[in-house]
């Protein structure tokens, strides 16, 4: 019987199964960072337990590291959290990419970069955006700190098998439309909880046409649709991306691994518990205007009216969101002025994101009322961008060029959007206060963020790209 990749990977990792119980799943890779791990390590110490497989664990510091001066962490509590991770990794023998290490970066950027992320693996991390690694055909999902402790101690997790869902993207992406717009359009169309209790596989020609970095952007935001995980069947692009990476074997071992990887792809005719479709005709460059990622629309449209919604709870939600965002129903999205631009985060901080944004701003200036920052996803992305002169393009245009980290996506370090101000952000969440208490976030693609930086308000990037062409 034809199987989906979800069933194949799941079945391959069952350590123990019993009717009426969740399955005990083996975890191939456990990624850790400073915010959701300290209590887990403390739990190990209190119970006199060890890390079962330090060799299958990998830690880095990303959430609260400074992006200007690494040696100057002004917040003593942040400093303690970072030091605690270093101490814990030393004590328990867990490999760590410290904030000064060349492998450092956002955990979901470095996993693939180092080749730790591979098709068919089960990957967990105390971070909901772990779904990013699904781009490689890995079953990757976010867990809480108790589960982090469980994986550290046993290298397993008890998991009830979620249902399977296919989201098929029909057609080819239009001019100026990016992976970010696709995933924002999916969430807007189907809602923030469409994926609850499901693992999503993204399929369709549009997905096949995407680069690995673009696929990561799609899978990254699966959690924003409520999905337990989101993934894409591996293909030759997946194999090409991984070939030669630090943690990927070479030679014959690689050839064997490659075949194994490709076999994980969903079989022709495999059946999902649910299938949803979206046509690329429906997708244009997107901007969110509300306080959850489903509250967004194409750039050529306007903020909806409460009367556009049938349910009173939806109307109430819209009103609450617009009140927080200080926006009016019916306002064209292109009329919204912004004061900040953030290009970065585990969604959109990879080399291709920076290249596209840099190409757009080359020779232009950031609007006088806008403060714009670029935070590369990893030390390695930063280095490569600098080799290509991308840093110079950004700085010449008036952007700030920073060290790698999560930065303004969640503002746990000093990179904060002040109360009442608006940010065009390439990150993944526009929740109230996400980028700082009282801040207002609009989620967009890197090119849409770059375009907004130049104009001081949202613009249809397709017009700028046209001029370029």
């Amino acid at each position: 019987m034809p199987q989906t990749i979800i069933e194949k990977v799941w079945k391959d990792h069952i350590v123990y199964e019993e009717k009426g119980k969740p399955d005990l799943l083996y975890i191939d890779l456990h990624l850790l960072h400073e915010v959701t791990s300290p209590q887990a390590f403390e739990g190990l110490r209190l119970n006199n337990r060890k890390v079962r497989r330090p060799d299958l664990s990998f830690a880095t510091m990303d959430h609260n590291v400074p992006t200007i001066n690494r040696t100057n962490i002004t917040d003593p509590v942040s400093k303690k959290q970072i030091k605690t991770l270093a101490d814990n990794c030393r004590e328990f023998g867990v490999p760590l990419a410290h904030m000064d290490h060349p492998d450092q970066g956002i955990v979901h950027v470095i996993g693939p970069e180092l080749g730790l992320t591979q098709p068919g693996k089960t990957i967990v991390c105390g971070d909901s955006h772990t779904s990013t690694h699904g781009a490689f055909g890995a079953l990757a999902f976010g867990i809480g700190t108790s589960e982090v402790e469980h994986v550290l101690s046993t290298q397993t997790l008890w998991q009830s098998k979620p249902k399977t869902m296919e989201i098929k993207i029909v057609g080819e992406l239009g001019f100026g439309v990016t992976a970010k717009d696709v995933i924002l359009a999916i969430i807007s169309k189907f809602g923030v909880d469409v994926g609850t209790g499901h693992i999503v596989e993204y399929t369709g020609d549009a997905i096949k046409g995407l680069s690995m970095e673009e696929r990561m952007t799609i899978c990254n935001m699966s959690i924003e649709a409520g999905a337990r995980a989101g993934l894409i069947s591996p293909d030759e692009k997946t194999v090409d991306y991984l070939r030669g990476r630090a943690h990927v074997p070479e030679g014959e071992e690689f050839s064997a691994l490659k075949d194994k990887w490709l076999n994980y792809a969903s079989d022709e005719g495999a059946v999902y518990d649910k299938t949803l479709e979206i046509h690329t005709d429906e997708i244009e460059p997107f901007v969110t205007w509300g306080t959850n990622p489903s509250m967004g629309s194409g750039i050529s449209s306007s903020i909806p009216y409460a009367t556009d919604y049938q349910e009173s709870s939806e109307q109430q939600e819209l009103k609450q969101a617009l009140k927080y965002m200080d926006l009016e129903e019916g306002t064209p999205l292109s009329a919204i002025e912004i004061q900040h631009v953030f290009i970065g985060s585990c969604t959109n901080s990879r080399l291709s994101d920076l290249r596209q944004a840099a190409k757009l701003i080359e020779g232009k200036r950031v609007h006088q009322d806008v403060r714009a920052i670029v935070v590369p996803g990893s030390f390695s992305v930063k280095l490569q961008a600098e080799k290509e002169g991308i840093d110079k393009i950004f700085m010449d245009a008036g952007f700030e060029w920073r060290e790698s980290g999560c930065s303004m996506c969640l503002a746990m370090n000093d990179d904060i959007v002040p109360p009442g101000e608006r940010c065009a952000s390439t990150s993944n969440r526009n929740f109230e206060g996400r980028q700082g208490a009282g801040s207002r976030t609009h989620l967009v693609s890197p090119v849409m963020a770059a375009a907004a930086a130049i104009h001081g308000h949202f613009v249809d990037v397709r017009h700028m790209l046209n001029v370029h062409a």
Partner: protein
Amino acid sequence: MEPINKLTSIITPLDRVNVDTDQIIPKQFLKRIERTGFGEFLFYGWRFKEDGSKNEDFVLNDPLYEESTILLASHNFGCGSSREHAPWALLDYGFKVVIAPSFADIFYNNCVKNGILPIRLNEETVEILLKDSKGKKNQLSIDLENQTIESISSGRVTFDIDPYWKEMLLNGWDEIALTFQFEDQIVQYEKSHS
């Protein structure tokens, strides 16, 4: 964790859909390295105004609900970030039960691992309970063993829970200690996959 079985309390009604964990516990309070002490920051952005004074309009600041250990919310409660600080904050504040029509998956897991009972009830019952709990003391009794809730407004209603989680909650078991009993199987798996 503390076992949980029977509990009676008035309900705190939080009538908002898609409440995300960034609201339950904002990120500026995630820097502690302990599991305790998060209660004072629960729903910080809604409980307090910008100047730090109490937002009297927010339900948690209503003295009516001071003794409540049951939080009643709308659908997709706990969406967004995987931060376990969210259930830690709820527990530290005094909530032992959260009722909603639906929960985000990670948040649900995080609750049961900390001895908070998350109860999924159908939309209609939640609506009735929300209506009857706004501005008044609406008492609810919960019996996990028998999987029932009972109040004057809802009558006696049953709820579903995975038997595995139920047992864990009833006994307050340490899941890791339980998993250690499967050491042989784990070793076997590792041998056959190395």
